[in-house]
Structures are given as structure tokens and as C-alpha cells.
């Protein structure tokens, strides 16, 4: 079977030849979404059913602890943004003996992000395979697929896939599958929809919610009780990759990216590109002109000057060596003509509004950062505002229960550096050279 036909990019402006000849990947096809919100495609809805999935990948192998070595050797890392080696999480869990919950995190919180939602719509069985393999490997008592409450498209896709697997209305197709599941004593996957809040995709918030608490981040003091309840959260793309490497196949050397169009009249593209793809060729392939700067990793990410990243590959390891990173794979280019300081002020106001309001450094620090950047954007802050912003960012860093404040601090420090010329103009009280419009989606003007 020739998989290339399935990988024909459907994104306009991108020629099928540009990435021709690549190996089968995670997505059925690149897709186009609206500028923010759930990953419902504009145009064709592609999804792979259980029969197609089985034909393409063969039967799902049973998960055992031996897989730890495979995961280690494959260098599988977390694709939710932190890129923590998966084997590290597995080892941490294997040190305990308490009841274990494994969680597939499909709650993409970044307003621009759409790759996990796209994967769940196109390839639900690959993600479910990964979650079942994880549950079997570590002996989980509960397996949960966690979604944002407003992501109805992902929920429908996964519900349909689970119905196929568990034989509801598909008794014939799923019979062999069910028998294998019974033999392996695999726990049945539950779908749980959390709130649609920015922080309800945060790992500790999910664990807290599944234990009956609110879906808000928390700090866990290290337990000395070997029978304490355990949990492991993997991003859905990480699990899709686990489902591939567990079959003894090399995980595709690709990256799923959500790329925002610079024009406010266009949406987002979710693409799967080889790790060697540079930012320049990525944007060129999507028909975009070179921007002035690019926001890497989304609203909790960092700005970079276009000329400093244009020739870098999208490979996270290479980006980290260059002192940057793409988090969960969000690329938001900023067109020449838009004000970076204004965008940053709007993003900080958003991040501040999305605080869980639990930790002092976040409760007080984020509004201070947002107000300082707003002063700078409005030209009302005086020369001291930049120094205060950087000092506040430095003192807040790393002091929340979760990394939400750290996203804001990285945004502040990178904006001051990348938009140095704009910052000077604002400080000098000159009218901003650029348009004052907020072009990034999901933010107040």
C-alpha cells in the first residue's frame, strides 16, 4: 500500500512536491483550521477507522515493562511542550506500587495550538493504541483520555473510535480486538472532558481533577508512602509515537506544527514536516512572506527575530542547542507592520486573566507584568518601566505551582530583546512606527 497518497498536503500554497517521498507519518494530511479554538478542519474531515488503522499498522503489540528500554533507545520525549524524556516519567512511576492512573492529555490550551486536536480527529486509534500500551506496560488501574470541555470534535472522534474498539455497534469488526484486550486484561479507556480553561491541560491540574478536586495546578510534596496513588500524563502525540515505536517501527523523524497565518483573514495550518525543515522553508511552503519576528511555542512561548531563526531546523534538540525551543509546536509569525510590544501586552493580559489565582507570584506578578507592558505599549510608563518589567520577570520565574508564570516571564524578556527598536520608540514617546492593532487571535484589542 502506498502511503504517499495519504500525505498529500491539502494546504493551499504548498506544493505536494515540497515534501514528496517522505515516510509515513502521524497525520493523514496537513490541514487548515480557523485562527484559534478547537481543531475542527476548514474543509475535508479526515479520519482513520479501526480497519484502516489495522491495515496500515498491523495489530497492536501488548505493552510490557520491557518497553521501557525501547522508549529509552528511541529517545521518545514529551510532545506537550516540555520534551521531558518519556523513560524518565516511566521510571519515576515504576518506583512506586500504589494504584496507577495513566492519562492521555489531549487538552491543548494554547489558543493557537491545533496539532493534538488534529491528531485525535485523524488518527484516534493510534493515540488509543499508545494509551493502552502505556497502561499495560506500567500495570495501570485506570486509563483516561483528557480533553478540553469545548473540544467536541475530538470527543466525537474518540468516542467513535472507542465504540469500534469495544464493539458497540461494530461487533464483527472489533471481535478479534476485544479478545486480545480481554487476554491482556487491558483497562477500558475513559474519556473525561475537563473545563476549557487555559490551565486545565496542565498535568498536575488533570491529576487533581481526576482525584475529585478542581482542575487547577498543584504542587505534590514527594511522598514517602510506597502505596501512594501514582499517575502519569503523556501528551497524545507522545502516545501516538509510543504506539509506533512499540511495534518496532522507527518513529517518523517529523514534527507536528501549528502555524498561524500572518494575515488576520487567514487561519492556521497544522502540518507534519521533517525535522530538518527550516523555519524559512516552512513559511515559504505555506506561501508566507518572511515576517519581522516569530512567536515560538505559543502565548507561553518566546519571541525570536526572524533572521535569527530562519535557517534553524524545527527539531527541538537543535533549537535547544541554539538557546530556544518550540514547546508544543506553535509557530506564530508577526508580519512587518504589526507592533510587537502591543502584541506582547495583549498576550500578557490574556495570560494574567488565565491565572488559576492560587500562587502569590502568579496572582500579583502576572498583573504587574501585564500592566508594565501595557504602560510600555501606551508610552505612559516612563523609562523605568523596562527595568521593572525585567526585574519582576526574574523574581517570578520558577515560583508558581506550575509553569504558567514562567511562560509570561519568557515572553517579557524575549519581547524586550527582540523588539528593542519598538521599545526605544515607545520609551521616547514617539508614536509607534507600526500598526497598533492586535493581530494574534483570541486576545482583547
Amino acid at each position, binding site marked *: 500500500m502506498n502511503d504517499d497518497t495519504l500525505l498529500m498536503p491539502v494546504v493551499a500554497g504548498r506544493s505536494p512536491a515540497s515534501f514528496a517521498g517522505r515516510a509515513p507519518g502521524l497525520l493523514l494530511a496537513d490541514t487548515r483550521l480557523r485562527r484559534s479554538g478547537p481543531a475542527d478542519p476548514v474543509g475535508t474531515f479526515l479520519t482513520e477507522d479501526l480497519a484502516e488503522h489495522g491495515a496500515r499498522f498491523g495489530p497492536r503489540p501488548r505493552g510490557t515493562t520491557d518497553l521501557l528500554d525501547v522508549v529509552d533507545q528511541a529517545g521518545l520525549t514529551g510532545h506537550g511542550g516540555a520534551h521531558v524524556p518519556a523513560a524518565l516519567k516511566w521510571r519515576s512511576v515504576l518506583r512506586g506500587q500504589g494504584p496507577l492512573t495513566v492519562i492521555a492529555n489531549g487538552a491543548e490550551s494554547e489558543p493557537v495550538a491545533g496539532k493534538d486536536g488534529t491528531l485525535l480527529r485523524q488518527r484516534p486509534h493510534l493515540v488509543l493504541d499508545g494509551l493502552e500500551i502505556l497502561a499495560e506496560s506500567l500495570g495501570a488501574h485506570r486509563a483516561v483520555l483528557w480533553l478540553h470541555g469545548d473540544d467536541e470534535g475530538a470527543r466525537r472522534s474518540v468516542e467513535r473510535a472507542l465504540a469500534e474498539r469495544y464493539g458497540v455497534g461494530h461487533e464483527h469488526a472489533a471481535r478479534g480486538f476485544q479478545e486480545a484486550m480481554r487476554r491482556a486484561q487491558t483497562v477500558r479507556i475513559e474519556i473525561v472532558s475537563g473545563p476549557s480553561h487555559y490551565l486545565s491541560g496542565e498535568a498536575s491540574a488533570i491529576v487533581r481533577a481526576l482525584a475529585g478536586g478542581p482542575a487547577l495546578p498543584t*504542587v505534590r510534596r514527594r511522598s514517602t508512602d510506597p502505596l501512594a496513588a501514582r499517575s502519569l500524563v503523556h501528551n497524545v502525540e507522545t502516545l501516538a509515537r509510543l504506539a509506533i515505536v512499540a511495534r518496532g517501527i522507527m518513529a517518523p523523524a517529523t514534527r507536528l506544527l501549528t502555524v498561524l497565518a500572518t494575515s488576520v483573514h487567514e487561519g492556521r495550518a497544522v502540518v507534519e514536516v521533517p525535522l530538518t525543515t527550516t523555519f524559512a522553508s516552512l513559511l515559504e511552503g505555506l506561501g508566507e512572506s518572511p515576517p519581522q519576528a516569530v512567536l515560538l511555542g505559543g502565548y507561553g512561548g518566546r519571541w525570536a527575530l526572524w533572521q535569527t531563526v530562519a535557517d534553524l531546523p524545527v527539531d527541538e534538540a537543535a533549537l535547544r542547542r541554539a538557546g530556544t525551543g518550540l514547546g508544543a509546536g506553535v509557530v506564530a509569525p508577526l508580519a512587518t507592520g504589526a507592533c510587537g510590544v502591543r502584541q506582547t501586552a495583549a498576550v500578557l493580559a490574556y495570560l494574567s486573566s488565565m491565572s488559576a489565582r492560587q500562587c*502569590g507570584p502568579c496572582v500579583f506578578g502576572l498583573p504587574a507584568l501585564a500592566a508594565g507592558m501595557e504602560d510600555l505599549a501606551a508610552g505612559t510608563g516612563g523609562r523605568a518601566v523596562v527595568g521593572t518589567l525585567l526585574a519582576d520577570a526574574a523574581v517570578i520565574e520558577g515560583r508558581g*505551582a506550575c509553569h504558567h508564570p514562567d511562560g509570561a516571564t519568557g515572553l517579557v524578556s524575549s519581547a524586550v530583546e527582540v523588539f528593542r527598536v519598538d521599545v526605544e520608540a515607545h520609551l521616547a514617546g514617539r508614536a509607534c512606527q507600526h500598526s497598533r492593532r492586535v493581530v494574534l487571535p483570541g486576545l482583547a484589542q
Partner: protein
Amino acid sequence: MRQTAAHAPVRLRVDPLACEGIGLCAQLAGDSVELDRWGYPVIEAQLAAGEVGAARRAVRACPRRALWIEEVDNRR
């Protein structure tokens, strides 16, 4: 509470959810705790041997039970 060996590097930790910025810790363990401009503790990465006693007093004194001392974990 679990006893930590005298030679193992330890650190003072704060649960930022429990902390209400009362500030007793900075008074009792001023060498290892400073307060930010909103009154919340900023704690140094690792306790020097001479700072552990004061840090333990801060842990006991915290009205919100937000502080604890743990071994520095190099595994992750």
C-alpha cells in the same frame, strides 16, 4: 517527618498554593529566604549546613504549613 542524613544536600521548599505571604519564614530564616515585593518568599536553591536549623524553625513556625525541607533530588 522523615529524617534526612546530615551530609545529604537539602533545600527548603514552599507550597505556593498554601503560602499567603505572611512572611515569618523571612524573619526566622533570613539567610535563606527573602521576600519579593508582594511579600512572598524567594528561597535559595540549596541550604548551607549552617542554615538548616533556622530553616527548620521557619518550617515549624509557618501558620499555613506551607514549608518543608527535602533532599535535593538529582534524579530529575
